[in-house]
C-alpha cells in the first residue's frame, strides 16, 4: 500500500476556521502555517487515517457541487504538501 493512501491529520496541528469559511492550519511544533479554502478544510477533517485518497475525493464530490475534473489530483497534491510539512501523518499498513 502507498503510505499516503491513508493520511491522518497530525493531532498537534490547530485548525483555525474563520468567518469567511477559509481557515489556517497551524503546526505549533514548527510554527508552519497554511491557509486553506473550504474544500481544504473538509479534506482536513476527513483525514482520519481510515480513508484513502479515493475515499476522501469521493466524499468531497458528494459534499461540494461542480467539483472540477482534476479534483482528485488536486486533493492528492494538497495532502502531499501537508505531509511534506508535517501537517499529516501517514498511516502505516501493518500487513
Amino acid at each position, binding site marked *: 500500500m502507498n503510505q499516503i493512501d491513508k493520511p491522518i491529520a497530525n493531532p498537534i496541528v490547530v485548525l483555525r*476556521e474563520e468567518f469567511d469559511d477559509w481557515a489556517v492550519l497551524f503546526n505549533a511544533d514548527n510554527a508552519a502555517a497554511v491557509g486553506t479554502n473550504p474544500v481544504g478544510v473538509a479534506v482536513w477533517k476527513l483525514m482520519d487515517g481510515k480513508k484513502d485518497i479515493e475515499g476522501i475525493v469521493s466524499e468531497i464530490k458528494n459534499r461540494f457541487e461542480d467539483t472540477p475534473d482534476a479534483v482528485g489530483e488536486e486533493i492528492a497534491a494538497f495532502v502531499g504538501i501537508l505531509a511534506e510539512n508535517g501537517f499529516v501523518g501517514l498511516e502505516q499498513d501493518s500487513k
Partner: protein
Amino acid sequence: MRTPRSLTIEITSRCNLRCRYCYFFNNPEVVYRDLPTGEWLTFFDELGSLGVMTVTLAGGEPFIREDLPVLLEGIVRNRMRFAFLSNGTLIDDEIAAFIAGTGRCEHVQVSVDGSSAQAHDSCRGKGSFEKVLRGIHTLQRHRIGVTVRVTIHQHNVHDLENIAHFLLDELGLPDFSTNSAGYMGTCCVNADEVLLNVEERKEAMATLLRLTEQYPGRISSSAGPLTDGRMWRRMEEARAQDKPAFHNGGRLTGCGCPSNKISVRADGAIVPCNMLAHMELGRINHDSLSEVWQNSPDLNQLRTRHHISLAEFEFCAGCSYIPYCTGNCPGLAYTLTGQVDHPSPDACMRRFLEEGGAIL
C-alpha cells in the same frame, strides 16, 4: 477573524527591577495583583479551544513566577507557541533548558539599553547590565532565539552607535529593535529625566537612520525615533508629490492591533492592548474570550477608529500634513490627552517641526 491569533499576557505584576521609564507600573487605573496558577491553566485551555496560535508572556517580569514551567506546560499542552518580554536578568540554566526542551519558544525579547553598565543601568538599576548579559548568553547556549529591544532615553541617546556595534558585532545578534521611553506609567513620574527632548529626538533619528544603512535589515522599530523618522520622511515626500503617504491617511489609522490580538492584565482583566490597560473588556474565566473578541462594544469601537477624520480635531486644525498622517498610537493619545480616539501629540510631526525638529 473569529478569535485572536495571538495574545499578550502579563502573567505577573511583580518585577525585580524598577526601571525609571517603565510603562507598566504607576498606572493608577491598573490593579497590581497576580492570579494563581490554576486560573492561568484554565484560561490556557480556553485559548487552546479557540485555536490561538501564540501567547507572549510579559509582566512585570515573567521569569519571576516560580510556577513558570507549569504555565509553559499548559501552553504547550494546548498546542500553542510562546514568547517572552523580559528584562533578562532572572534567566538561569534550569529555566532555559526547560524552555528549549518544549521546542515551542518563538523568542525571548530582553531589554538592553546601553553598550556599557553606565548607560544601561542608568534607568534599569545597578547591576542589571551584567545580569542581562548573563541571561542572553544563557539563552544563546541553549539555542533559544534572543531578540533585544533598546529603549532610547536621555541617558543612552548618545550611545546608539556603540549599542549597535555591541549587539550586532560583539554579541553577534542577528538584529535588534528600538523604541523610546513614552509618557506612560513610571515614565510620567520621571519624564523630565528620561524623555527625549526635540534635539535628542533629532539626534536619535539621524543616528538610527544612518545605522540602518550601515547594518541593512538588522535594526527595526514599530515606534520611537526610527519609526518617527521614517514615517515623517514619507509624509514629507508624499506632501511634496501630492500623493498619499499611507492607506486611508488623514484618519485615525495608526493602530491595527485590535484586529489581530488582545491582551490580558496580571489580575485577569482582558484589555485591548497593554498600552490601553485601563480599558477593561472582561475578565478571564468569567467572560468568554471569543464573546469579548467578537462583541465587546469598546473593542469594536476601537476597531472602527479608522473612520474618524483627523480634520475633526482642534489639535489638528490648520495642519497641512493631515492627509498624510495616521494619528499614531491610541495608548499614548490616551495618556497624553485623556482620549483614546484622538491623535497622539507625541507623534505629531507639525509640533515636532514647530519645536525645532527637522525631517532628515
